[in-house]
């Protein structure tokens, strides 16, 4: 499905080879002197609907891209002379989707987790990424262009997450973000993972050598780590159970607010624990996954805690062995109604469980369609501090967009063209044409 980017760029920009493109004279839009400022290599996409990502919709609409950035989006815009104008016909254009809590793209699910310690905030998920993973191609096919790869749940306090574009040259994938460290409460940190906590004992790795093995233990590891960090910060005291100084420094940054904190929590009782722990150390945080958010809605409202919610799973998955496998289907609607800041995530799912599907399920269960779009574009971008970079089709933002062959998130629609930095990373129509020509 995916062709090498370089080849596609060429084919895309050669008018004759364009998929939906019909080269237009720019006569539908009145000539404007300012348009002359735009270089002729600007790219213009025209479609029945252009969703900016913040709720604004242009019907029909135009998006102008130049040098990998969005120049403008609107209903009618002054076009540069001689610009490549691609008419996408009845298609709908949205910003590239953003997943704020993606768990794909590491060499294997949980396989890249560092098991040497329960507390590894000094490490960086960037180092665990497999940029060659097929996961990224699947994400592109879902219309997801930016993902925040979040720490893995097999450590109580996991590594810093990292943001990457899902396509384009390897060297340009990384997106700088403010550091975010993730903690995991509940059974995933205590019962999951590769099972290597303290190999020195018993001469090997087995169930009994892991700590924590219970919720109590997860909570304790969290508390102990932050106490150690405080003692290290204030008095330079080394940790008595072997936390690296760098780990304690990283936690001190969390305490100081320089690094953001996330709590992966699924079950209601773990929400309770998360708040207790955060209060003990004066931490603010964002929930990740928050499967039983609907049961804890009062808590979320009272505490104004943002939620990266999802995924709602519609297929069998390994998660079902856990108690809170399936959230209430209308959780997203409830969060929206109660004014809880939230976005949607597909976590480790793509394709049928991927982010468009997550938005689709939310819409089906009562979430407003425009809100659903925001919940997979500008809201997640804001959750990871990238609101000035991705998530909307606004001037100056990255030219990451998706052309859908129907109403986005409808079960009948899918992305047919995905651009990252203005370059196509998916061009289904072009491929179709090629194969049939």
């Amino acid at each position, binding site marked *: 499905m995916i062709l090498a980017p370089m080849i596609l760029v060429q084919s895309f920009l050669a008018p004759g080879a364009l998929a939906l493109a019909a080269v237009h004279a720019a006569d539908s839009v009145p000539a404007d002197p300012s348009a002359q400022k735009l270089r002729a290599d600007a790219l213009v996409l025209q479609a029945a609907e252009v969703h900016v990502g913040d709720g604004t919709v242009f019907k029909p609409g135009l998006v102008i891209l130049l040098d990998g950035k969005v120049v403008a989006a609107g209903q009618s815009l002054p076009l540069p002379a001689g610009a490549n104008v691609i008419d996408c016909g009845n298609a709908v254009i949205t910003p590239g989707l953003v997943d704020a809590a993606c768990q794909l793209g590491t060499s294997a699910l949980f396989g890249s987790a560092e098991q040497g310690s329960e507390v590894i905030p000094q490490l960086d998920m960037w180092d665990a990424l497999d940029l*060659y*993973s097929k996961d990224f191609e699947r994400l592109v096919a879902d219309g997801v262009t930016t993902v925040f790869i979040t720490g893995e749940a097999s450590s109580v306090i996991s590594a810093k997450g990292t943001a990457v574009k899902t396509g384009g040259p390897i060297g340009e994938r990384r997106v700088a973000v403010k550091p975010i460290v993730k903690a995991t409460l509940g059974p995933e940190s205590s019962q999951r993972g590769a099972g290597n906590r303290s190999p020195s004992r018993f001469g090997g790795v087995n169930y009994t050598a892991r700590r924590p093995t219970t919720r109590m233990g997860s909570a304790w590891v969290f508390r102990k780590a932050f106490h150690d960090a405080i003692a290290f910060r204030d008095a330079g005291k080394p940790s008595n159970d072997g936390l690296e100084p760098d780990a304690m420094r990283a936690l001190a940054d969390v305490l100081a607010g320089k690094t953001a904190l996330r709590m992966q929590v699924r079950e209601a009782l773990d929400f309770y624990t998360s708040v207790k722990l955060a209060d003990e150390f004066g931490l603010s945080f964002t929930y990740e996954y928050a499967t039983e958010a609907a049961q804890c809605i009062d808590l979320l409202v009272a505490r104004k805690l943002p939620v990266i919610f999802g995924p709602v799973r519609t297929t069998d998955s390994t998660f079902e062995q856990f108690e809170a496998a399936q959230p209430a289907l209308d959780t997203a609607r409830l969060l929206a109604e109660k004014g809880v800041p939230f976005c949607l995530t597909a976590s480790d799912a793509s394709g049928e469980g991927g982010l468009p599907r997550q938005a689709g399920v939310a819409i089906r269960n009562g979430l407003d369609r425009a809100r659903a779009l925001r919940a997979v574009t500008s809201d997640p971008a804001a959750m990871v501090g990238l609101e000035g970079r991705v998530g909307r089709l606004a001037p100056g933002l990255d030219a990451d967009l998706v052309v859908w062959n129907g109403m986005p998130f409808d079960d009948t629609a899918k992305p047919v063209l995905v651009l990252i930095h203005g370059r196509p990373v998916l061009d289904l129509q072009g491929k179709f044409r090629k194969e049939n020509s």
Partner: protein
Amino acid sequence: MLAIPLLAAFAIASGPPPAASLRQPAPVALRVDGVVQPDGSLGAGGWIVVRNGRIESLGGAAPPAGAATFEFPGGIACAGMVDVATSLGAAGQLAEPARAFTPDVAAADAFEPDHSSFLAAARSGVTTVALTPSGDNIVGGRLALLRTRDDHGRGAVLVGPGPLRFTWSDEAFPGDRVPTSRMGALPRLRELLAQDATKTAGASLVAVQTPDQIRTALDAFSAAGRSIALLQPIHPEDALDLLPGRAQAVVLGAYDLDTPERETRLPKLLAERAVPVAFTANGDGAALRLTAALAVRSGLDPKAARLALTAVPARLLGADGDAGTLEAGKRADLVVYGGDPLDLAAKIHLVLVGGAAVAKKETP
């Protein structure tokens, strides 16, 4: 036919010989019909003069006065082959698996000079090898640079600490020791790479398998200003574009029926990106030549193939001042083949290691 005078003329590096024959002060001159040039091409032959274990001159029209002379009609002289990753004489002893980082371990400590594998390597045309720690550790320790024969007919450690061997593939992450992940290993790796003590001549040998292992290894080593040679990657295709300018070479081999593509198709792809290739076959000269020949059949330039057996590995080991090419002043590690070394039918007529001839059979 030539064997008897030849062995008489050279120090016979096949066992403890009489002391008197250890050194020939008088030069020895070899007449060959062709010479593999430093750029890998086949050049014209002539007289090669060896004195005191070193090459004195090449391509002369006549032997110097007083030199013992030997003629190899149709023979082509080439630098002795160099293998960067062997376990000669120390198989099974090159790992200290208890810890993930063992930079202080030296393969030289596992070196057994009298092991018969050195003689076998020398007879097959391999004159310089590295004893290389195995892949159990992320930092496995220092390679030991060896001549396959010394004047006493044994293997010999060459001077200086060898380059470090790294393993960045899953082999070094057995799961029962920390760190368990590349992510967790990077802080310590970066710390080690920043230390002067880990710097050596030559390239760091890094065993990798997948494209992403290549990416992360290149990032880490480049950031520390280290030159890197990728050791036996399995599927590097997707990451080939990352290599130019950052990887000094890629070590491939030996040809294996399980992974034939690696040794046949890859060399050409690497050559297209101007990334040199070195071949390894655990000190087996015949296997090295086979691997190189197959790569040529799959499109590798013969010049690059010859260098992949000699100059490139010598450079990776930091031994290119003395070995890897036939040049005046270098150690007299040379092999006279009955034709192009890449021609598998070409027999070996003579192997000199440091000017000493390797006996074809043990002297009784």
